[in-house]
């Protein structure tokens, strides 16, 4: 793992620490090793992208950090922080209105009605969906639903936002605009983000670091710091250049599985 000591974001407090974390599904001859001795640290306010081909255990890694699944070996420390997780599908509940969906995490925490209504409005404003609170989820487009899901995740008041290919199902234009939005919200809300993707340019566009994982089992191959000035564009030469470099490593990794 390469580390850049001078980078200011790397000097922050560690909020997620994984030390030789392994995850195995099943046992005996059917055992599948999904993650093999993965070590990584995510610091406060950092935007980390996890990148890899199929079977690299990206999603498994997020499930472990989110506490939805148990690690098989190693140590995982998030210091008791609250974690929220977003998926490729917005997975909003159709029996609730848009603001009802955003209010739900607060309802579960027992926040008073008036307070959560006001907070939901603020959050919808943050994701630029002011005035859509009374709509039903199915009345919105895919990109808008994903922003509602983001507002719902923010309503959890989580310290760490985990995103599992959140823009994977969206068209390129929508994705491009949502990158700008996510970057703005990340900065304004001072979030710590762990973002899983298989899109190299997306990773370089968004991340402070891009961590490349190998496949079957998932291991950390390399940790690329991304230092281009923000806000970035996905079609800028710097992003394209570094993406090409990382893609080469990824290709070599995929080719390794030919035999």
């Amino acid at each position, binding site marked *: 793992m390469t580390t850049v000591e001078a980078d200011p974001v790397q000097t922050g407090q560690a909020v997620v620490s994984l030390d030789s974390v392994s995850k195995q599904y099943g046992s005996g001859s059917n055992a599948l090793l999904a993650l093999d001795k993965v070590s990584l640290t995510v610091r406060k306010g950092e935007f980390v992208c996890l990148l890899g081909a199929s079977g690299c255990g990206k999603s498994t890694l997020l499930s472990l950090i989110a506490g939805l699944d148990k690690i098989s070996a190693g140590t995982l420390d998030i210091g008791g922080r609250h974690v929220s997780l977003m*998926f490729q*599908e917005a997975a909003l509940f159709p029996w609730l209105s848009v603001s009802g969906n955003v209010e739900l995490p607060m309802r*579960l925490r027992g926040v008073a009605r008036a307070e959560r209504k006001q907070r939901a409005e603020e959050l919808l404003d943050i994701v630029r969906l002011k005035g859509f609170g009374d709509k*039903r989820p199915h009345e919105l*487009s895919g990109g*808008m639903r994903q922003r509602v899901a983001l507002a719902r995740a923010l309503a959890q008041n989580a310290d760490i936002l985990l995103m599992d290919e959140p823009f994977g199902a969206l068209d390129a234009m929508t994705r491009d*605009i949502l990158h700008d939005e996510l970057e703005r919200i990340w900065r304004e809300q001072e979030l710590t983000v762990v973002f899983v993707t298989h899109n190299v340019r997306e990773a370089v566009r968004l991340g402070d670091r891009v961590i490349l994982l190998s496949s079957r089992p998932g291991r950390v191959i390399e940790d690329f710091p991304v230092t281009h000035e923000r*806000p970035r*564009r996905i079609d*800028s030469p710097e992003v394209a250049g570094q993406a090409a470099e990382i893609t080469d490593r990824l290709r070599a990794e995929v080719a390794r599985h030919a035999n």
Partner: protein
Amino acid sequence: MPIKYPSARAGLEGVTGSLPAPVEKPDAAKDRITGLDALELGGKSEKGSLGKRFWRSAWPKLLAIGIVVLVWQIVVWAEWKPVYVLPGPATVFEDLGTLIKTGDFWDGVRVTMLRAVTGFGLAVLIGTIVGAAVSRFTPLRAAIGSLITGLQTMPSIMWFPLAILLFQLSESAILFVVVIGAAPSVANGLISGIDYVPRTWLRVGQVLGMTGFAKYRHLILPASLPSFISGLKQGWAFSWRSLMAGELLVIVPGALSIGVRMQQARDLNESSLVISFIIVVLVIGILIDVLFNAADNALRKRWGLTGS
């Protein structure tokens, strides 16, 4: 926040010399996303007026009724049976018109509907409790899960001999059969609704930290609603059938229900009246079905499960 791309520009300048500096309004990013939203939502399709839509759904049904009445009339004209055994539509509709103007008839409808509502209500209560218990506790499911499906396929008329022995010729005997006919459908609707809650929703529930009661209150129960409603609908159909069988078999003294009146008409050889009661039972069944469909459609529309 002004959005500029200094790094991108720097890179391009190296290649092309000088590019005009992109000057963006402070709200450019906001405009972009609001504009995209407006484009993606698009215009709404016009569905036509209420009257037009009503006519569009009504005419096939009216046509079907017309065909049935026509075939009936042809059979009568062909003199397959004497007209005092099989009267024509004109005679029956005339008798039906007279029948529904009598207070006696509506008393009968009231007796029957009261039984239907009570029996169905009890079936919903019991079916819901059993369904929730079965899907909550795995051993219970192994024990009686298949029994519920078995009960569902049992013809309800088979229960009457036992019901009469248990409760004699009483309201309870009828209610017993109505409930035992309808409750399994209600329970099954709830069980399959709970079984097929989409995995992604369950994961969201996990992420939001839902456990125990909150998980049922905010996720499992609302998510199983569509399946529960189809269970209710099916349960109603079963309870209505059981009730009609019951009213013909179990004559409770003093309760002149639709079934009893129909039986009386048969005893007096009044075919026209018998057919009139058949039509009444059919119409009530259709009306209730329309109510369930309306509830189902309202839910589908709210959830965005319809094609529109």
